[in-house]
């Protein structure tokens, strides 16, 4: 069975400092992994996606994530936080062997950016 664990429910950083949001997953087959972002009272926006083409995935707004199979991790990073990055971030897994293509969401990490 698939599952996703986001290791921090809240992360607080200062503007201009690096961001690290941690995610571990379990999957029976070859996983697709995603990060979505949700700004307050908004819908979900796709940040980036891993589908086995490259282990380091670059997304929008300067975010990137590295797939580490040995550690079953897919952590999200950004070199320098901006105030506009304050939002909730969801790590998501989908198994390529599941014909429903359903997404399994982590419980989310709320990122606070301090001025």
């Amino acid at each position: 069975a698939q599952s996703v664990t986001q290791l921090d429910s809240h992360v607080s950083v200062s503007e201009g400092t690096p961001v690290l949001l941690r995610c571990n997953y379990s999957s029976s087959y070859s996983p697709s992994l995603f990060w979505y972002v949700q700004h307050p009272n908004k819908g979900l926006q796709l940040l980036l996606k891993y589908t086995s083409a490259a282990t380091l995935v670059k997304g929008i707004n300067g975010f990137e994530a590295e797939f580490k199979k040995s550690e079953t991790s897919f952590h999200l990073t950004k070199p320098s936080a901006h105030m506009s990055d304050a939002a909730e971030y969801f790590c998501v897994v989908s198994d390529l062997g599941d014909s429903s293509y359903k997404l399994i969401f982590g419980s989310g990490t709320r990122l606070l950016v301090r001025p």
Partner: protein
Amino acid sequence: DAGITQSPRHKVTETGTPVTLRCHQTENHRYMYWYRQDPGHGLRLIHYSYGVKDTDKGEVSDGYSVSRSKTEDFLLTLESATSSQTSVYFCAIKEDTDTQYFGPGTRLTVL
């Protein structure tokens, strides 16, 4: 923009009343999904559809039914709303890859 709209965007209703939420897409995607979002749970799948009249249950389907009579519309019905169904509901479509794109959401309050 995946061309997904949801209606209504906000609804307040009373316990025991039926409620139908609509998801509309403009790009003829085969797969459509309904999720609910609750604090501390991320999004959880309620039902999904893999074609006209083809639907299946997700992990939190109790108390919900769906219908898809046209490719572009996917309806979610709460036959008799309960307070535990107060939530934000998101519709999604799957593109030809396995990437899903989400609608703007419907905030439902059951009093």
